């Protein structure tokens, strides 16, 4: 029983890393398509893309170890104990399975400890300090800032400094943008993406995570633009960027990648069309075919292990 369970676990975890590598390698080819479709849809596609590795690995493992399904996909062969349909087992799987499981668990727990807990604590503290308004919480701070914080029930915070520095129209724009973050639960979406990609080596998922963040922001910009206008939102972004720029601490990072500039340019560009359902269906089918095609070689690989 222990041999079977450790073989199943090893199979799933190795496939998770394998599919993670595969999706990372293919991702650059998808980027141009993702940049040209509706940002709300693009952000969902990226999250789904990041979920492929653990989910496809789980599906493949389930099929490999389900004799009723595997009999259609694994070529017939016999072992010393007969020719019955079987799930592949390795007596040495326990140690590598335990090591891989410990690594993946460590990465996920680390991700939760660095993000989930600090955000919860900060949200609770700021909610206590701030003045609760109808749509947002006002923070009595001169530092200009406006943000959404929290995972399951996010809250919008706007500082008094930001309210003084911006016009009523800019504040409306900020509120619409942040309301969209709250409605879409973007913080949770980003956390999910980080957890799904946590087991992968550090730099592998960076591009996809950056693109996800950018598309979430663009989707919220468009939500605000639907009520105001694209130019109004772009103008508000420029003005708020100027206000924040002058209040930034001296030790700020040098320019690394500028999301706001890309968002402003995207707002002033032509609107992007959503991805056709046929393409989404084709991509899903391709993933399914890859998983099914892997079942026979996977069965053989696990059996090759001592």
């Amino acid at each position, binding site marked *: 029983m222990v041999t079977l369970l450790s073989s199943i676990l090893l199979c799933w975890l190795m496939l998770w890393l394998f599919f993670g590598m595969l999706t990372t390698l293919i991702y650059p080819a998808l980027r141009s398509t993702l940049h040209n479709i509706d940002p709300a849809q693009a952000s969902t596609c990226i999250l789904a893309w990041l979920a492929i590795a653990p989910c496809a690995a789980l599906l493949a493992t389930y099929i490999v170890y389900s004799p009723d399904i595997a009999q259609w996909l694994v070529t017939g062969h016999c072992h010393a104990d007969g020719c019955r349909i079987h799930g592949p087992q390795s007596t040495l799987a326990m140690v590598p399975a335990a090591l891989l499981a410990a690594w993946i668990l460590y990465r996920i727990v680390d991700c939760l400890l660095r993000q989930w807990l*600090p955000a919860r604590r900060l949200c609770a*503290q*700021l909610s206590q300090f701030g003045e609760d308004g109808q749509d947002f919480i006002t923070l009595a*701070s001169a530092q200009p800032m406006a943000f959404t914080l929290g995972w399951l029930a996010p809250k919008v915070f706007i500082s008094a400094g930001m309210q003084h520095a911006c016009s009523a129209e800019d504040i409306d724009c900020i509120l619409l943008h942040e309301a969209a973050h709250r409605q879409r639960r973007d913080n949770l979406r980003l956390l999910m993406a980080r957890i799904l990609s946590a087991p992968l080596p550090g730099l592998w998922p960076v591009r996809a995570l950056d693109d996800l963040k950018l598309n979430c*922001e663009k989707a919220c910009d468009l939500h605000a633009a639907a009520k105001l206008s694209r*130019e109004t939102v*772009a103008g508000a*972004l420029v003005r708020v*960027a100027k206000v924040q720029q002058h209040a*930034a601490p001296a030790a700020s990072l040098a320019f690394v990648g500028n999301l706001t500039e890309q968002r402003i340019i995207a707002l002033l560009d032509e609107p992007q069309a959503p991805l056709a359902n046929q393409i989404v269906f084709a991509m899903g089918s391709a993933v399914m075919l890859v998983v099914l095609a892997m079942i026979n070689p996977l069965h053989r690989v696990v059996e090759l292990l001592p």
Partner: protein
Amino acid sequence: MQTKPPSPSNTLPRLGELELTLLKALWETQDQSAHALRHGLPASHACSLSTVQTTLERLHRKALVLREKQGHAYVYRARLGRSELLGKLLGGVIRQLHTGNLAPILSSFVDFADRFDDDTLDQLDELVQRRLERRGDK
């Protein structure tokens, strides 16, 4: 005993719910004893006197309250005002977000890690203005 400096990812002040509630009570009325603070607690935070005393002791160790012995009991007052503490808290968070020491845990209207030079912002501003004028012409 030397206190270990907090790691960059862990510099958020750790304040529990009861600690925050007691601080709020001290902001409203300074110079209160543990006994008076316990009586003023909302029903949702009702607890024993020893719990209040322990929590006040923790706040004192964190240098968030001052205390003075009056008779047999201590009288407490907040060391920092509400806006001072908020400023300190936010300042730390913003600094860490700017320097990349804190994992991104919030969505801000304009990303705190974004850095612009004035020329870029002026160019973007011009671009927006041109678009607005073009829209006005139509």
